[in-house]
């Protein structure tokens, strides 16, 4: 089966006056139809830039330097802008953290939604409106008829994010990139949004990339997980494998930092130091300065290994035997 989306050797760099920022520096993954992939990392790890690279929204001074992004076999890197425009919002859609980034504050919801349909398909306004109403109903908006005539500022944060999700699903795309879509929302609203996204993906066969810093959310929805650190994927695999038996010292540290019920009141394992400055990354393994297992070997960049089936890691000293979490 051809994967819906295949990213290999992706390098996206920003050429700033202060130097080259290697925001994405070696990212590989593939997503099957209907699969949910969690892309996890801390701020500055390049997880959002990976999403922007896929949907072709990298602005100057940024550039995809090398690598390939294939949507159902079609190469997107270097594709003409016309082609990208016809794919964006149609075959690939994106949901942002702040729904006001997607929504135009001076247009009514119906205007924006109809526009998103009619940009890609020749349908009458009436048909488009009917479809908008159905989609709003699908994401759990009560009284969609009334909401269609509202302006974004008249909706609550959770409602706005639902509208943004409805717009992403309008054309039943192959891939949706969700960039921290629930981070700004309350717990009960977050769980409603995840519920709707899960349901729609199952129904339409859409693949979902869920970008977040919250490991617990990813554990709840993802099939596969990719952990990013300083522009690279350091560990990837099935959700159970990576969370129960993490290999990379960074993943181990990250999991140790999450408070869980069985370690109530104890000290959390903390990763010393701070994420490195992206303008001046250390040579070799970028995690080595914070890593308890680092050795002289780590001054050379580690290659990706697969010590267990279905679990890849970029490390010379993976946690192979010990039960760590």
């Amino acid at each position, binding site marked *: 089966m051809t994967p819906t989306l295949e990213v290999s050797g992706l390098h996206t760099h920003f050429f700033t006056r202060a130097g080259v920022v290697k925001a994405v520096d070696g990212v590989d993954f593939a997503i099957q139809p209907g699969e949910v992939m969690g892309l996890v990392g*801390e701020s500055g790890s390049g997880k959002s830039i990976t999403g922007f690279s896929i949907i072709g929204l990298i602005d100057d001074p940024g550039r995809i330097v090398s690598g390939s992004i294939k949507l159902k076999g079609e190469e997107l890197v270097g594709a003409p802008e016309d082609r990208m425009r016809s794919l964006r919002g149609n075959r690939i859609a994106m949901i942002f953290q702040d729904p006001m980034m997607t929504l135009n504050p001076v247009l009514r919801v119906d205007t924006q939604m109809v526009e998103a349909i009619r940009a890609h398909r020749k349908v009458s306004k009436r048909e488009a409106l009917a479809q908008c109403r159905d989609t709003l109903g699908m994401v759990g908006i009560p009284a969609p008829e009334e909401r269609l005539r509202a302006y974004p500022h008249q909706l609550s944060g959770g409602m706005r994010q639902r509208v943004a999700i409805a717009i992403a699903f309008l054309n039943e795309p192959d891939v949706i990139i969700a960039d921290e879509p629930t981070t700004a929302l309350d717990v009960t609203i977050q769980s*409603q949004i995840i*519920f709707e996204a899960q349901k729609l993906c199952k129904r339409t066969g859409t693949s979902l990339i869920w970008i977040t810093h919250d490991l617990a959310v990813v*554990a709840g929805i993802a099939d596969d997980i990719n952990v990013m650190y300083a522009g690279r994927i350091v560990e990837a695999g099935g959700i159970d494998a990576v969370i129960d038996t993490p290999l990379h010292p960074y993943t181990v540290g990250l999991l140790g930092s999450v408070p869980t019920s069985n370690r109530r009141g104890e000290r959390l394992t903390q990763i010393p130091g*701070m994420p490195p400055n992206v303008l001046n990354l250390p040579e070799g393994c970028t995690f080595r300065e914070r890593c308890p297992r680092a050795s002289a070997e780590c001054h050379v960049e580690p290659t990706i290994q697969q010590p267990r089936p279905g679990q890849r890691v970029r490390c010379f000293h993976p946690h192979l035997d010990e039960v760590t979490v």
Partner: protein
Amino acid sequence: MTAPILEVRNASKRFSKSLDFAAKLARRMGANVSEETVHAVDGVDLAIMPGEVVGLVGESGCGKSTLGRMVAGIMPPSDGSIIFEGVDIAGMDGAEARKAALEVQMIFQDPFASLNPRMRVEQIIGEAPLFHGIVSRAELSDYVDDIMRRTGLDPTLKRRYPHQFSGGQRQRIGIARALAVKPRFLVCDEAIAALDVSIQAQVINLFVDLREELDLTYLFISHDLSVVEHISDRVVIMYLGRVVESAPIADIFDAPNHPYTVALLNEAPRLDQRRRVFEPVKGEIPSPIDPPPGCHFHPRCPHAHARCSAERPVLREIAPGRLSACHLND
């Protein structure tokens, strides 16, 4: 039994928007216009024992920050009273009021907005203890060094400005500033929400260590249950300005009583629950301008019955040390 270090008695806070000229005119003409009032905090009772860590949990708009601000003395309550060591703060004067104000310090959510960008770190930390005569000018430098070391900051960086630090370090500066006046009670308002996961763990550990070293009492305000579960002894859950449940940490997670608590616990994502089917509670958080009558949670509650929309449930003891405000307990 020891006396509580801090007590909130039936405190309320209302914010009213006064009518503008046009609205006043419209009312003169007979239009049905009235002032909008937000009941941010609506009759809350809370007692915190010395050395206790109380987690205050709720969603946005539930009044947890407003309650925190009243406890810290930044905002006076509209009704009710805040009692520090047996004395009402509102009735204190002069030196006594200043002493009580110093004893309770607050740590804010946004480490980017809560530090003066034009002051050096040594001024930020050293200003208050110098003003209040806690240290002399001669000892100030050593005093600041000591507090910086205690909060995990390198004292050689004290001549720098806040923008030269990362988010986690700035939060440490905020903690150092609060500790500099030797408080006994800290109100932490979403103090780690803006930080990355690995940095969050460092700051949580700092809070745990400081509590042991300095014998501090915390009111830890957060929307994140797992963080609260980790560091608190007791949890207080708020919904739309009212306390709905209060219980020791183990009890509330093992056997939540109030339906809202049950919903919150079910819906918080957890590491050990994979590929789960989310079963969200219906509806949105109502506006605090026009909260539903009776129990505020009844429009979203799966167990609501007729009484819930008519009568406000009282917060009462359902087991030793456990309080809940729900008609289902009758």
